[in-house]
């Protein structure tokens, strides 16, 4: 899982451990974040998300294990300055400086030249919709505005890896939507790691996700794999016939399960060349309709929230193969 300079991984954690006294925050965490992905980090409170962020950003040091940031080993300000930026969770900017002064200061520190910084700060102020508050002191901003300044500073310059801890927390729906769209638009241009409790947000913004619990990764991979979008179709039937045998006959080699109380058929299959999820759905629907079944709804995979809720509360299970 080494992320060398030419590796396709932006971030790699291998068996990383971190304790705060007797509290074990990370217990051998393995994580691989592909370059150019928008990667979601999901887990309950105390799962180790913020600790993972902090180790990645060099704020904390791992007790054990290997950390590789952009192929340059553990975070080092000299090596990673301007290449890695972050929105910390509960960090306060200097209260007595103006928004513009803060951004200029942070931008200059990360290596943006004196000539370029003005234009760069204007771009960021426009991005986070704070142009009209640029000359105001930070202490006068609302919580949501502070969050936007925090997001803005994370996108100063041209960072390769951006870590956003609860980025849209405290933003109004319109602003949150704008930020989500912006993050989504970054896909392929830079790597963004998003930590959030808003699972719908993770599902809509990210293309990869890792579910963390008790300092370990429970499940990780592309969103489509984790949610089963490419391997599972659920068809809910209205009152009427349930042609289970006909459906199983039409989908030989696939698994068909019937949940009577929910009146839902769950089809599990392996995607193959020439046989995608759409093809399987079509085959199943044709069989059902031919047998007189009435279709209520069709859904691909399960929501991330559903997957999250299915996470066992006890000891994390071993990673499933390929995930």
């Amino acid at each position, binding site marked *: 899982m080494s992320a060398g300079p030419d590796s396709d991984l932006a971030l790699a954690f291998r068996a990383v451990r971190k304790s705060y006294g007797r509290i074990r925050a990370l217990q051998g965490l393995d994580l691989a974040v592909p370059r150019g992905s928008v990667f979601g980090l999901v887990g309950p409170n105390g799962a180790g998300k913020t600790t993972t962020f*902090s180790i990645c*950003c*060099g*704020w*904390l*040091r791992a007790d054990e294990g290997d950390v590789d940031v952009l192929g340059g080993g553990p*975070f080092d*300000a*000299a090596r*990673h*300055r*301007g290449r*890695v*930026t*972050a929105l*910390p969770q*509960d*960090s*306060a*900017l*200097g*209260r*007595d*400086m103006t928004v513009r*002064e803060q951004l200029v*200061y*942070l931008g*200059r*520190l*990360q*290596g943006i*030249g*004196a000539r370029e910084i003005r234009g760069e700060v204007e771009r960021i102020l426009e991005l986070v919709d704070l142009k009209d508050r640029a000359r105001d*002191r930070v202490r006068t901003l609302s919580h949501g505005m502070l969050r936007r300044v925090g997001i803005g*500073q994370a996108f100063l310059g041209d960072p390769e890896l951006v870590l956003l801890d609860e980025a849209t927390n405290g933003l109004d729906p319109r602003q949150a939507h704008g930020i989500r769209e912006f993050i989504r638009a970054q896909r392929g241009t830079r790597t963004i790691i998003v930590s959030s409790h808003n699972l719908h947000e993770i599902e809509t913004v990210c293309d990869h996700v890792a579910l963390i619990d008790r300092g370990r990764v429970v499940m990780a991979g592309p969103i489509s794999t984790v949610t089963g979008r490419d391997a599972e179709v659920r068809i809910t039937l209205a009152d009427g016939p349930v042609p289970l045998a006909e459906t199983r006959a039409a989908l030989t080699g696939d698994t068909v399960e019937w949940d009577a109380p929910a009146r839902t058929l769950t089809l599990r299959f392996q995607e193959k060349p020439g046989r995608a999820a759409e093809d399987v759905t079509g085959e199943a629907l044709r069989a059902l309709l031919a047998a007189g079944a009435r279709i209520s709804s069709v859904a691909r995979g399960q929501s991330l929230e559903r997957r999250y809720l299915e996470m066992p509360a006890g000891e994390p299970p071993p990673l499933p193969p390929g995930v």
Partner: protein
Amino acid sequence: MWGAAQFSVPRPFFTNLMFGPTPLRDTALVAGFELREMLRSRKALAILALYLLAAAFTSYIFVSVLENIQAAVRNPAALITGPTGGGRGGQPGRPRGPVFAPSPPDKPSQGILTQRGSPFNRVIFSQVADPDARDFLEKQPPIILFFALVSFNFFPLLIMIASAETVAQEHQSRGVRFVAMRTGRAEFALGKALGQAALMAAVTLLAGLLCLTIAAWKLEDFTWGAGLRSLLVFWPRVAVFGLPFLGIAMLCSMNTGSAMMARAAGLIGLALLFVAHQLVEKYADSAFGPVLGVLDFLAPYSHRDDLWLPSWNDAGPQMLMLAGLGLGYVCVGLLFYRRRDL
């Protein structure tokens, strides 16, 4: 041939050193930001204003005393024919001798006030044994000597109260995380120290100017020229004397978790240094003298007396030593700070 090209500094290197992303530039950026932030911070300004207010108040009292003495010196008869009776040193029924000799016509009254044997003289010269230093001090306006004396004693306290929280506050608010991704911890801490040093130097200069202004207002024979010249002699010494204390304040600030803890640690450190210096002076001749001497060498107080010396050749090395001590304390703090979690 010594062409200009042989001595020219490669411009990109020099430009990069000053304006590129280098430790030097980062330190300057942090220092500048720190200075501006402190100048806008209500709490910092309140502390500094209190210090200036205290300086103004004490110098006002001091100058008022001088003013009364001046008035008395101008009318020595009032002193010679002062109250009679069994005061200390007097004999019943006979008038006491003059408290102060009258001012020579070519010497302003401030010189009289520093003559040996006067109460003021005793206060000031209790720290100085060198005769050259005494002669030097006699020529200085008393208000500046008062400024220096008070500053040498209270400036360290101001530093511990105002500067010890500078890095710790960033840890408490976790604002340090925004900066720690963009520059090294050494640049951050040194920049903070530099910003604080500049601020403290400015505050002592203001305090000195405030003292001079009050003296100019209250004393008839005060001359701005002599006052400013003397201030320019003592202000750098006061400012440099504060550097080791600033170093200790930074050491505490870098390695504590909150502003209050940093300030408490700084004040405890200051008290310990003071007590240690007193003990070292008391037991300098004991068997532990050499060991205590080495320890005392690391304490700023042991270098204070030489700052009263007239020549920069005498005071200069001590100032360098004090600056080195300050940097040394910051470096010791950094040894721990570079490994701590933020």
